[in-house]
Every structure is written in C-alpha cells, then in structure tokens.
C-alpha cells in the first residue's frame, strides 16, 4: 500500500536528512519508525503527505506516485498527527476535531456527532467539545490531536510522536486502546517514536533509522532476536534483549545437540548398556536415517525383559516432540503443562537434532536473572 523507492531528502543547507530509503508496507500494517533525535523520522513522514518533497526517488500509495497527485487531495486522504500537536487556539475542541470534515464539506450536524463519538473513544466527556485548547491539559490536547487525525476515517494515518506528552499510565492505556482501534478499523499506520517500549508494543514492523539511513526493518521479534548491528543492540538496550530472550530464542539455540539415542534394531541388552554408561533412564529411538521413532525407558525394559529382544519390541511411539524453530517460550509452556521431563527436538523431516530437558530450562531462567550481570562482568 505504501512504498518508498530510493527516496532521499537533502535540505537546502546541504544537510542530507534521509538517504536512499527503500521500504514497502502492506495495508493494515502498524509501522513504527524509531531512531535517535534528528535521524530523519519526521522528514520521512512528511514526505508521505508532501509537506516535504523528496529530492530523489519516488513514493507510492496504492501504486500511485504521490507526486502525480494533487497535494491538497492527497493530504485529505491521509490523517496526520503533527509532532507539536498543533491544535488551533481560536477554535473549540469540536471545531478542531471536525475541521477536516468541514474541509470535506460534511454537514454541521454530522460533524458534531462524529466529534462526540470520537471524544468518547478517549474517555473524555462531551462538555469538552465547547472548550478551547488552552483549557485542556497537555495530555488531553495530545489526545485531541490524535482524534483529529482519525476524524475522517482515512485508511492511512501518520503519527509523529503522538503520545510524547503523556504520563506513563495514560500513555499505556492509550497505546492499548489505539492498537485495538487500529486492528479493528484495519488502518495502515505510520508511527514515529523514540521510545523502544512503545515501538515493541505497537509495531507490526519496526523501521530503525540512523542518520537518515535505514539500519533495520523487521517485526519486533526479528529485531529482538537478531539486532542488525551494535547500534540497534544499544538502542534496544541490553536489559530488554535479555528479558526478551525466552520470548524470542528458538529451541535450537538452547537444546542439547547430543541426545542419547539408540536405533530401533538394536538389542535390549545394548540399550541397557547405553543407559548405564550415560546415566539416563530413557533413550530416544531413531531409525537408520536418524528419524525419530519414539522412546524406551527403563520401566518398559524391566517389565518386558523376558519376552522382548529388540528395542523395536518395546518402543513407545508417537513421542511428543518440538520443531527446532519453535520458540522456547512455547516449549517451556508445553513442558510444564504436560509435566514432561524432556522434549526431543526434530527438523522438518523429523530427524532428531537435539533434546530440551528441564535442566536446559534452568539455564534460561539463570540467564534472565543473572545473565545481565555476567555480561557486564565479562566486559
């Protein structure tokens, strides 16, 4: 729906605010631009509604080159929350909220109704409608600024640090509310912030900028899992990286890659020897190609000692296993819920590649509690 092709912006003084940006966003995506102050976030955003025109490159909305559209018409199709809030001091809250509708020539009554409707979204009573912006707190003004961008129900909304002036509690509430709203209304939102928590919470995809250059673009999980470089790591912050570990690490990263195994055609006596030397009470059973077949444990061997000869005879098939790209978070949940002692890890073709035991989990818990300190000590 929104596409940047080799977009650059050089200001008159020779300052390159954005250089060679290539991005593509889908309809309904919540995109968050993040980066340190002065990295070109606002500039990028303003190029979308042509408040600033790119020096090079093209921007497409629904495959239409925005430079070929009438700027006034283009802007009326895009909601915009300006960084500085920018409510009109000479207009009441109602007039402020419904100004876009006035431009779109909605009748007075409908405008008023819409303003009321919007105000209730942010828990403000209708008596605010007749007040002037200076009679509102900074946080309330900011909410009105957001409502103003939602008024005409445009499919694309640009928001430049819309929650900057809010206290953490209100901000949190508004973020939740807003995320829900976005999903419900299926709007494409381009959102600017320099608060990483806000970005991780809201974004479907995060775009990290630095000195006008794209550093990384990906889902919050991707960015936490594989920060592109040290800059990103630092920007995310060590603490968040460690905290996020169980949420984003895959089973493959923490598994023991050398599970004790036995092939199904072995004799039981061999199995017992293997158990004894490795000091384990069960064995994973694989075939010649390494495909997981099931497991045997010491109890089963004990009960069937007289009748059975081969591993295959007492094999317990259909073992619960996890895929190696599964998230540790989910695996932990399974282990705890099912009361398992261990989980075999397999690849796409059910080849056994490793095992996750309760002991591996201890490592993770240890890491998330003390890993931080260790990192620091190591430095």
């Amino acid at each position, binding site marked *: 729906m929104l596409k940047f092709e080799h977009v650059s912006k050089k200001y008159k003084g020779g300052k390159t605010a954005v250089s060679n940006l290539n991005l593509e966003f889908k309809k309904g995506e919540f995109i968050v631009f993040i980066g340190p102050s002065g990295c070109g976030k606002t500039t990028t955003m303003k190029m979308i*509604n042509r*408040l600033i025109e790119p020096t090079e490159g093209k921007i497409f909305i629904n495959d239409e080159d925005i430079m070929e559209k009438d700027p*006034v*018409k*283009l*802007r*009326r*199709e895009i909601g*915009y929350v*300006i960084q*500085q809030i*920018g*409510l*009109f*001091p*000479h207009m009441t809250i109602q007039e402020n909220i419904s*100004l*876009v509708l006035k*431009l779109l020539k909605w009748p007075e009554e409908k405008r008023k109704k819409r303003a009321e409707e919007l105000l209730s979204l942010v828990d403000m009573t209708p008596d605010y409608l007749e007040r*002037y912006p*200076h*009679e509102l707190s900074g946080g309330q003004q900011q909410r009105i600024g957001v409502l*103003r961008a939602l008024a005409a129900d445009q499919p694309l909304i640009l928001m430049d640090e819309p929650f900057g002036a809010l206290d953490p509690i209100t901000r949190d509430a508004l973020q939740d509310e807003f995320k829900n709203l976005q999903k419900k209304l299926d709007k494409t939102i381009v959102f600017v912030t320099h608060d990483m928590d806000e970005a991780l919470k809201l974004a479907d995809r995060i775009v990290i900028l630095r000195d006008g250059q794209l550093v990384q673009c990906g889902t919050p999980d991707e960015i936490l899992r594989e920060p592109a470089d040290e800059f990103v790591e630092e920007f995310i912050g060590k603490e968040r990286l460690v905290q996020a570990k169980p949420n984003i690490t895959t089973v493959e990263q923490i598994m023991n890659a050398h599970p004790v195994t036995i092939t199904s055609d072995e004799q039981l006596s061999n199995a017992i020897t293997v158990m004894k030397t490795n000091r384990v009470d069960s064995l994973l059973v694989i075939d010649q190609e390494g495909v997981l077949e099931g497991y045997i444990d010491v109890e089963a061997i004990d009960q069937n000692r007289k009748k059975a000869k081969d591993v295959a005879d007492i094999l317990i098939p259909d073992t619960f296993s996890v895929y190696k790209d599964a998230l540790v978070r989910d695996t932990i949940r399974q282990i705890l819920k099912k009361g398992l002692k261990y989980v075999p890890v397999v690849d796409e073709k059910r080849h056994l590649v490793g095992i996750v035991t309760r002991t591996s989990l201890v490592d993770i818990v240890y890491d998330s509690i003390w890993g931080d300190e260790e990192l620091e000590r190591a430095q």
Partner: protein
Amino acid sequence: MDVFSDLITYFTNNGSYVWEQFFRHFLMSAYGVLFAAIVGIPVGILIARYSRLSSVVLSLANVIQTIPALAMLAVLMLVMGLGTNTVVFALFLYSLLPIIKNTYTGIRNVDHTLIESGKAMGMTKWQILRMVEIPLSLSVIMAGLRTALVITIGIATIGTFIGAGGLGDIIMRGTNAQDGTAIILAGAIPTAFMAVIADVLMGWLERSLMPVKKKKQDSNEQEEVTA
C-alpha cells in the same frame, strides 16, 4: 475659572456646530483608516508571503510616515486641490504604515506549526489564510487600525488649512480670536476625547479578537496594573 465658564458658554451657544465638526472630523479619520485598511491589509498579507517585497514596501511606508503633515497637505493640495478629499487621502497615507506593518507582523508571527497543521489536513492556501492566518493575527491587525485611527484623529485637525473643516476649524478660530483660549479648548478637548474613546473602543475590540481569549485577557489586566 473664567476659561471654564467661557468654554461652557461656547458649547451651549455653538453645540450643533461643534457636534457637526466633531462628526466631520471623525468621518475624515475613519475614511482615511478604512481606505488604508482596504489597501494595507492585503499588502501586508502579500509581503508576509513574499518576504523579499517586505523591506521595500515597509521602508516606503516609513518614508511617507516621516513627511511632516503640513508639508504633505501642501503637496497634495497642489495635485488634488482644496477640500476634504485631499485630507482623507493624506490620512490614508499616514494610516498605511501601522496597518501594513501590523498585518505583516501578525501574519508572520502565526505559529508555523499551526500552518503546517492546516496544510497537512488538506487546506488550500486560501483556506489557510482564511481559517488560520487571519483569525490568528486579527487582534494584531486591529492594533494597527487602532494606532492608525489615533494618529489620523490627531492629524485631521490640520485639515482646516485646506478648508476641509473638522475640529481643527474651531481651534483655528480660537487662535484668530482675541483671548480665544476657551475656543481653542472647545476644539482641542473634543479632539482628545475622540482619540481616547477611539483608543479604548478599538482596544476593547482588539482584545475580544484575541485567539486565546482568557489567557491573554489575564495578561492584559496585568499589564494595565503595572502600567
């Protein structure tokens, strides 16, 4: 005390005449300011847009302002002849500077983020002017009109030299008469009175046009207290 009773006598005997001149005086000033507003406000807006023009236009208006009133009237009289129109034209010229300057400053000082805000919403240039810039600079523009009106009320007194009438007529009579102090005052006091009333009324109008009403009124009250 003599002067005071003379003054009362003059007013009672010549009430309608004084009133007539008062009204005439006011009309000349008002017309001068009105025409200056019709020309000056658009010019002010224009130079706020194209700031390269601003220095030329403003210094031109400044030059006009510095011409002594009598010299101006004399020169205009050569071109336009005697009469009210010449005076109104002179008043028009004197009103230009405060009006253009205030309009220019008012529009220039509108918070840039508000203009951007309007633009981002999809306002046309004309809509931004009408819905944002003018409403937000209206009180500053009014202040310009106020200054202009007070100036013109003062200058209009010399209109009498080229036969335009007004309160200046009465003052002139006083200066020509023997012991005419009372007559001079009979012309001067209404002139001062008119200037003060104009100033107060326009000031009130100016304040009521402030974009942010409550806050500014508070600060104005403070100013008045300190003043």
